């Protein structure tokens, strides 16, 4: 049971990553690889600050801000210096590797016996239940610690989702969505599309970094290699989410991304349980995304063929 709750918790934490990837890949059609670096950046910033005794909420906010900055760099490289979108992301991601090492001063920062959002959530949960360490849920033993951490993460993600949803429906947010949709039109309506892209990538990477900060606090450490392949994870979540909700209404797509992230994490946990070697995880993920990208084309073609026949 503890394993299941842990899976859900990580799924929700990584759904912030999925939301970030959703903004760059889906709203702007910008393949932003920066996320691989900025998720570690978020973890590094949060972990280092926490190790220095900074308030966990502040440390997480600082991680978000660091992500904003990373996204701004990528956006500026692309819009201001006309560097190809993929390459801008790769440049910033590579640079971030060194930046992350500088932030942490070593390759790994443990968060043992440090006050984090996770320990705070556990404490609140314990106080709430009056010192009971576990309770029964349909015959399963559930640890109060695990349950309260999960609740805290669900709340955090719900808050982020709501804020993002509201933002996407403001004048600024709508201009952002239209920029990715039809750049000619938005220029003709007086919007500087470059500014929109920089801004959108900043928010995207901010969310990714926040996800990294929460992940570090949950795992109890930040590691310089934890970001490798994360963009593909996010993309897989977004694709699953789209298949789940099958709509392009803003609110539903956001919920879809969160659901996709949780479901994907669940699939991974099951696969590992069945004896998939953790070493093969990234390979399997890449193959999965490959199929998720080509299957819709095949379906369309076969549908066309059957329509002609």
């Amino acid at each position: 049971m503890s394993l299941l709750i842990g899976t859900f918790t990580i799924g929700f934490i990584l759904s912030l990553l999925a939301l970030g990837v959703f903004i760059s890949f889906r709203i702007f059609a910008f393949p932003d690889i920066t996320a691989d670096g900025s998720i570690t950046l978020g973890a590094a910033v949060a972990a280092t600050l926490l190790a220095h005794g900074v308030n966990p909420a502040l440390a997480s906010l600082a991680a978000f801000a660091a992500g904003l900055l990373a996204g701004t760099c990528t956006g500026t490289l692309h819009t201001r210096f006309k560097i190809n979108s993929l390459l801008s992301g790769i440049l910033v991601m590579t640079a971030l590797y060194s930046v992350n090492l500088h932030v942490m001063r070593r390759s790994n920062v443990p968060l043992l016996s440090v006050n984090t959002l996770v320990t705070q959530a556990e404490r609140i949960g314990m106080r709430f239940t009056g010192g009971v360490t576990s309770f029964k849920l349909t015959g399963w033993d559930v640890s109060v610690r695990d349950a309260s951490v999960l609740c805290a993460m669900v709340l955090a993600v719900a808050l982020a989702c709501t804020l993002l949803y509201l933002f996407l429906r403001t004048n600024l947010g709508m201009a952002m969505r239209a920029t990715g949709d039809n750049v000619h039109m938005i220029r003709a309506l007086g919007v500087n599309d470059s500014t929109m892209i920089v801004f959108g990538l900043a928010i995207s990477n901010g969310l990714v970094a926040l996800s990294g900060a929460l992940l570090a606090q949950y795992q109890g450490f930040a590691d310089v290699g934890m970001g490798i392949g994360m963009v593909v994870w996010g993309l897989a979540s977004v694709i699953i989410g789209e298949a789940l909700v099958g709509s392009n209404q803003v609110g539903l797509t956001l919920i879809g991304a969160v659901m996709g992230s949780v479901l994907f994490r669940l699939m991974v946990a099951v696969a590992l349980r069945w004896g998939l070697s953790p070493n093969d995880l990234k390979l399997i993920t890449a193959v999965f995304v490959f199929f998720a990208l080509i299957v819709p084309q095949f379906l369309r073609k076969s549908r066309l063929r059957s329509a002609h026949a």
Partner: protein
Amino acid sequence: MLEVQAIAKSFNAGTPNEVRSLRCVSLRLEPGSWVIIIGSNGSGKSTFLNAVAGTFFVDEGSIRIAGKDVTAWPEYARAKFVGRVFQNPFSGTSPNLSIRENLSLAARRGRARGLGWGLKSSLVEKMREEVSRLNMGLEHRLENAIGSLSGGQRQALTLLMATWLRPELLLLDEHTAALDPKSADILIALTEQVVARDKLTTLMVTHSMQQAASLGDRLIMMHRGQIIHDFQGAEKRRIRPDDLLTRFEEVRRAEQLDQTAAQMLAEKYI
């Protein structure tokens, strides 16, 4: 309202593929005038419109809109003064956004966009009213994504968006060319209505001799990046589509003459 001073534009300059799309074009538009531009393919009429809109910067000359020198302004900054409808029905609207979201984007053309709520109920009410005037039944479908509409409907909405805030200058780039004849007629009627109602200064490129003869109060004919005829006032009112076809034929003959003359001279002297 619009003052274009001797603008020139070459594409691929300095290469064998150099195209001199505009050569020293000057034009002055009085407030409230409606100027039609015609010309054969490659005459520079659309390039001229794009130069005014700021799609690219001109090589020489200057452009003033509403008294401001906008020659060095990027496209999005000029949008403050300029409303545009494109030839391609897909260019003027955002397909994945709803009708009302598109309109609300247009309601802030050239203005600051902050964290204000995009779809205020008063604005949506006004949208319903304006959209119902298009007589397309779209007022009941404001939540639908624009991508689900026909080309004619999208162009009508683009026109509504371009004129939602009264533009100092309205640019219409063959905006009926991609439509079926019936939708084109509807769109032209809507265009006449809004131009007359708001007394808009309008620059319109068209392929249709019919439209060129019947619309507007001034007609400009372009050829090889230059203005070769400028019909105004009574002369414009007298013009018929056949007259325009005759003019095009004259241009074509003059061009042939150029070539044959060159050939003759070449045979004789080279």
